[in-house]
């Protein structure tokens, strides 16, 4: 099954290798991995999606915590959360074939961000299935996809959830920490929202 972990890690050289190396060592394939700055100066935020057995979640999270540069790890599991992916898709299109693509883009609530005589570039954010939907429709139309660039998933829990990080950094979060499985059982609700 797919697991999603959100990790806060120190923003310094080599940290990504340590995280990636852990998955390699456990022989777990990383489905997608995104990293970027977080709301805290010295911390990066990662979303790691990987394919592993249902029981593996505990061990992966525990092992991530054993890395000295990892400050916090959240196993999203079925918790209510928002997941998005960004895709840039370059499609071959001329003056004559553009309009059909414009229509598709409209339907998918995507955007055209670049236009040349022979091609155009579509930007789209959304859940994975939506992006895959657009790609499929493009493939089924007469248009030829030239390039696809996908960011991988980014995930954020709904509601207030930074208390764990604040605690890990030694600050007083000023609110009750959330137990790990507060949202267990809320998976269906989450799924419903995801597939809006």
């Amino acid at each position: 099954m797919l697991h999603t972990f959100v990790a806060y890690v120190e923003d310094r050289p080599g940290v990504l290798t340590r995280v990636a190396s852990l998955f390699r060592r456990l022989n777990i394939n990383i489905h997608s991995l995104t990293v970027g700055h977080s709301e805290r100066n010295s911390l990066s935020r990662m979303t790691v999606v990987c394919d592993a057995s249902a029981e593996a979640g505990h061990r992966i999270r525990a092992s991530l915590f054993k890395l000295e540069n990892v400050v916090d790890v959240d196993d999203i599991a079925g918790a209510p959360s928002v997941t998005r992916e960004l895709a840039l898709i370059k499609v071959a299109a001329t003056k004559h074939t553009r309009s059909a693509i414009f229509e598709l883009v409209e339907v998918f609530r995507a955007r055209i961000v670049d236009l040349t005589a022979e091609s155009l570039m579509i930007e789209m954010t959304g859940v994975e299935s939506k992006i895959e939907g657009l790609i499929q429709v493009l493939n089924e139309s007469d248009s030829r996809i030239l390039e696809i660039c996908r960011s991988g998933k980014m995930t954020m829990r709904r509601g207030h959830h930074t208390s764990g990080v604040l605690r890990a950094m030694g600050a007083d979060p000023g609110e009750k920490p959330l137990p790990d499985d507060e949202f267990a059982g809320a998976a269906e609700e989450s799924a419903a929202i995801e597939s809006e």
Partner: protein
Amino acid sequence: MGTDATAQAAHEHLTTPTRLTGAEIVWATLVGEGVTDVFGYPGGAILPVYDALRKFPIRHTLVRHEQGAAHMADGYARASGKVGVAIATSGPGATNLVTGIATAMLDSIPLVCITGNVSSKVLGTDAFQEVDITGITLPVTKHNFLIFRTEDIAPAIRSAFQIARSGRPGPVLVDITKDAQQGTAIFDFAAAKPRPYRPHPMLRVEESGLAQAAELIRHSKRPIILAGHGVTESEAMEQLRTLAERAQIPVALTLLGLGGFPASHPLNLGMMGMHGESWVNHAIQESDLLIACGMRFDDRVTGTLATYAPKAKKIHIEVDPAEINKNVKVDVALVGDLRAVLEELLPRIPGRDGSAWIKTIEASKGAVAVHDIKNLPDSGHLWAAHVVHDLWRITAGNAIVVTDVGQHQMWEAQYFHHEHPRTLITSGGLGTMGFALPAAIGAKFACPEKEVWVIAGDGGFQMTSAELSTIAQEKIKINIAIINNGYLGMVRQWQQFFYERNYEATPLVSPDFVKLADAHGIRGRAVRTRAEVADAVNEARSAPGAFLLNFLVEKEDSVYPMIPVGSALHEMIRRPDNDPLLESADDK
């Protein structure tokens, strides 16, 4: 090693911030961390550090191969409970450490390894003797640092010590570029102190878990405590003993657990697992409750998992959350420091009558103990078991024994009875041949007043025998017993059992070990019969300097019982009634 005056100067650095070179900061920080001994080997990229050594009250032991430095630091740590320190140069010096670092990693031994690297300006250019040692050691260290600024040296080394000894201990490597060693910075030991150690956030000892554990223990008819290395690491010997005695629960030990519970204790069953005694493994298979204390259900201990202790509920007390449910699914997990958890658990454990179960186990020993090889009449054969048994008898068990890896290691575990923790030093997790001699040197530095014995095979001994020179140079007293069977014995045993006696690449020609010792100015003696064993051991013990005994034992003896890989714990290969072995030890 410096004089008293240098010691005083070094201590002043610790209280008054002073401008020092990076090289001086390395030593000053080590002094501040309480280090008195380091093991290392110099080279270009670490020369500034060596140049500064004379100003500091630290004893440096020159090894003969950097693997030896890591094993010595490891043996030092295992014998003392302190952090061991190894030093090497860049490139080949650093890569030579790797086997020793991995050995420490697999057995959770606190080490700090310091390596020099090329100057930061040429880092990443394949400069002479440059190697990406932080990359190489990433999976075999708890953490590592690449330091290229002088001011970062003290904080990195201080963090390294904290990480090495905290939680589940392990090795940490600090790689320092040459220019960082040569530059200067204000050394402020107090300011370099790391933030308080963050315990693993998933440690969890809940009220409900403790209650559940107590309840399981109360209702169990056939409980067994499985005690591992964690008992020694968390110094939980007293608590373990109290639990066992109060609830009358027999204790089985892992290889690294030996010594954590006294061998002579009536509740001690002995070692479990691949070469554990039959009654121990049978008892585990029959048990209705396993209480695992600081052990990780290694494959050498469980046999095939599908049939492991099928009737037992399992309580796992363990400091590393990543070990919970890794190999064996448990019913209650108490994730925390073993001693602390046992202290919380003990008030909930009432006295209990365990006599029926203990009697059952006793009965299952049957005639096994009587037929044991050590009880056989002297028939002129010299069995390794005799040697180890006599060594134990003569030293009254009052020695630190450092073993290598192979059959002799298992015979040591079976026939040398350890009463106290840190008296058996052995590479369990990685099973590193060549470990014994250097690790024993480290142990002797840690405990100079203790009697230290190496028990090594003819194969493994040769992997690091160059360290005999280190013994000679440092003039230390270690006794060495080579169990010389002319084979890579443990591999030969596997070939005998599982590869139709195809002894490919296991017969082994060795030098005359007594002459080899002699070449190093170390005395020695060959032993061919059981009658000579006691006298030889006594001669070695009373000799003022190091002494080597070359025991020419039966060549094709095997370690029994044995659980073949992939078999259940109770499916053991037993010593044949009519051991076909007729051969006697060869004179070489």
